[in-house]
């Protein structure tokens, strides 16, 4: 594959993945909190193409559950119940952005058929839909955290590198202090002093803000080093000789040099902050039930019985690995193109 084709594949993967996760309502097959209490830990529903009579079906379909098997605590299909897959079906309503609701889903089957692409969890909730909604929370956490960290880091780095002297010394010592902080314990401490009654989503946003604020130190240091070298370049010296203001030089000559670095940094930081959210939720400090995040979904795997019996509960973990790989490739691609070191 040529470099260009590779880049395009990567880009489209990146976009599709984010679209799916940013609009989970449409791509999911049901709501994240919908419980099918008679179907806990149901294995993934198999999609069939061959009818029971051996003929090929143009429209893929799923079978219903065999009630006798369900009553006995097992899962078996009933081949007399056939539910064809339908596109753009109407299902449970969801919110696209606050105030705008819709109920069209990409994929579904007619009631009383059930489509659990990735199986169900202990309360009979669709793991696939929960994974998509969970991804929204986790990726959003990564993005917000990164935005805060980069914004703070860039400003501190620009000022520190450009002014030099004592400003530089003071900010760099501060950076070292922040880099030495054990962030996980800091988060535990922050969670402990937060009021208990705040909404779970607010807790979550606060925590992410904390992650972002702690994470600014490394970008600040990198930006500073870029600024230090940029400000000695000839065109900067020339601009200064011509009487350009500091603000003008920073904005017109130095910031553009740093932007590429920030972009690479973002691709590198986002997965780290996603991981931070996952870790927190895994430890029970993240967003509360029934709202899913990849961390809370993976927390189910702490139970031995889930770990050994229900392989489909690993799905969010696989999604996490895939997402990290994509970000890793993206960050190396940007790095190659702009040629900035990341350490």
């Amino acid at each position: 594959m040529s470099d260009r084709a590779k880049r395009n594949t990567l880009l489209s993967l990146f976009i599709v993945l984010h679209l799916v996760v940013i609009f989970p309502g449409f791509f999911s097959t049901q709501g994240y909190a919908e419980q099918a209490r008679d179907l806990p830990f149901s294995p993934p529903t198999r999609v069939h193409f061959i009818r029971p009579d051996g003929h090929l079906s143009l429209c893929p379909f799923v079978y219903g559950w065999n009630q006798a098997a369900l009553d006995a605590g097992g899962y078996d299909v009933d081949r007399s119940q056939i539910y064809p897959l339908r596109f753009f079906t109407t299902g449970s309503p969801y919110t696209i952005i606050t105030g705008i609701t819709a109920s069209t889903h990409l994929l579904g089957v007619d009631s009383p058929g059930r489509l659990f692409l990735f199986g169900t969890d202990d309360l009979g909730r669709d793991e696939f839909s929960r994974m998509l909604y969970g991804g929204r929370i986790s990726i959003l956490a990564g993005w917000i955290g990164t935005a805060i960290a980069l914004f703070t880091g860039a400003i501190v780095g620009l000022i520190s590198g450009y002014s030099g002297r004592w400003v530089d010394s003071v900010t760099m010592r501060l950076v070292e202090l922040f880099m030495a902080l054990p962030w996980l314990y800091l988060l535990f401490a922050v969670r402990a002093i937060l009021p208990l009654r705040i909404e779970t989503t607010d807790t979550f946003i606060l925590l992410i803000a904390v992650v972002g604020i702690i994470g600014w130190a490394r970008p600040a240091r990198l930006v500073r080093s870029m600024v230090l070298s940029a400000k000695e370049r000839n065109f900067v010296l020339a601009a200064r000789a011509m009487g350009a203001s500091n603000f003008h030089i920073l904005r017109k000559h130095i910031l553009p040099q740093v932007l590429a670095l920030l972009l690479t940094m973002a691709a590198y930081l986002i997965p780290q902050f996603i991981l931070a959210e996952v870790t927190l939720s895994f430890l029970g400090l993240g967003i509360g039930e029934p709202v899913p995040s990849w961390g809370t979904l993976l927390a189910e795997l702490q139970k031995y019985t889930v770990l050994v019996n229900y392989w489909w509960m690993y799905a969010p973990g696989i999604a996490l690995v895939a997402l990290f790989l994509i970000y890793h490739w993206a960050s190396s691609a940007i790095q190659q193109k702009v040629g900035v070191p990341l350490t």
Partner: protein
Amino acid sequence: MSTRHSSRSRFRRVLTCPAIFLVAALLAAASSSAQDKQPPPEVGHPGGRITVALPTDPKTLNPILAVDTTSREVIGTMQADLVHINRQTQRTEPALASSWKVSPDGRKYTLGLRRDVKFSDGAPFTADDVVFTFQLYLDEALSSPQRDLLVIDNKPITVRKIDAYTVEFDLTKPYGPGERIFDSLAILPKHSLEAAYRDHKLGEIWGVSAKPEEIAGLGPFRLKSYVAGQQLLLERNPNYWRKDANGTPLPYLNELLFTVVATGDAQVIRFKSGETQILERVGADLFNQLQKENSSQAQCLYDVGPGLEFVFLLLNMNSLDATKHADIAAKQSWFRDLKFREAVSLAMDRKGMVRLVYGGRATPIWGNVSPGNKLWLSANIQHPDRSIDQAKALLKSDGFSWDANGMLLDQQKHPVTFTVIVSSSNTQRTKIATIAQDDLKQLGIDVKVVPLEFRALVDRVMNTHDYDAVLMNLVNGDVDPTPEMGLWRSSGEMHLWDMGEKTPATPWESELDKLMESQMTTTDYASRKKLYDRVQEIVAQNLPLIFLLSPDILVGAQSTVGNFQPGILDPYALWNVDEQFLRPAGATCR
């Protein structure tokens, strides 16, 4: 909950916080019952060692101070009581007291003590030890958790020595539960504790780091060695007083080893590999998994049935300072409305909770008495099926309505929404809350579930009353109704739904007060049962707590353990450890 509270209450919270206990089993009807048909214990062979996993280190080996389940479990095997409850029959049996007589008014108990009994250090046991022991338990300065059980109607019981082997207890009032009061109260050696007691140093001795020879007891085992964080090894007490049917001295086992294994998963793995012989307090999902994998029948797994724990939803009906808690006070018009509580109860999918959260290893309940308590369960309690339609009809008849989005509105057209707090360390409880949340959503009620750290939760329920609703559990110390005095009496310290009532707020609460008082001082089982049946009826009708389910007691033992007879009263598996023995390999389960 603070230790102070746990010692005051006659309930114990388990699961959420293993460090908090309450007073061991006491009381239950002394009457005969249908469940007494138990075969006599098998005659075993001496020798061998049984290993049991503990979730944490015991905090102390001092029976006066022990408040956590782990410490009490260990102490139970090192100490003995005057009268013991057989965990299988739930009836009392003579222990250090070989006989007892009750005065005609039911107030005075004269106990004849066993002669020729020696402590593990060789000193003789006499009435002086009994009098001294009760002096310790009743000493307010020591604030022993057992003290509360020995104070009947605000008056401490008194003990008098009649001769070297006879003591007389004055219970200050006729007392329904009778001699069950003596169960699990360890009798302590006066000769080794008196000096420390005089010097006010009782709190510092018999800690886990004590030398084995410092600790003397009357139980089947005595301390041999302790390695913090790893294990506690007990050896057989050669002076133990019990003998089996053939006259062989008990206990059969040479050693009893407690190892510290922190998580349930790890405990199950050790049990499966045969490293531990007895598995106590196993979770339902692990129990089911073990059963599935146990094709060789090397392990015997017992579902002893529903225990004395009940899980319930509690709506805050406390009188609140309206300026400080205006938001909660506004919701209390719903919570105090019986039809609202009935609708909430009707919407609860109890069977779903049992199936999804406990894998079927629990029982749905509609009243305060668990079906495991066969002596006291009332047959008249209704078990209405879950019905969202009926619940909605009930709300409608009460003036509630629904908006265009299906959300419930109260009589003043305010949306009905509240938060349920739940202990964050208990995943089962959070799951139940998630199911309840979905159930109430079907009524149009928007419920938020807020997991809180356990102590913060208890503080809100017991002290600040700063909550809308809470999903929690209580565990009775015994099958007898008397430990529930604190819960049902309007002035009780565990009167959770409306704490610190000066006078009963409703006619049914005042009836509860009278019923509970008179059942405590009635000694005849049939009359007490009638009174307590009425209590159950009132509770089920008025729903001060919305009862959900009662989890099963699940235990396991290697098939080689003989005389393993688990019961629903704590300690479930080790209560008869003196009779337990090891069979040769290849044995089959009972």
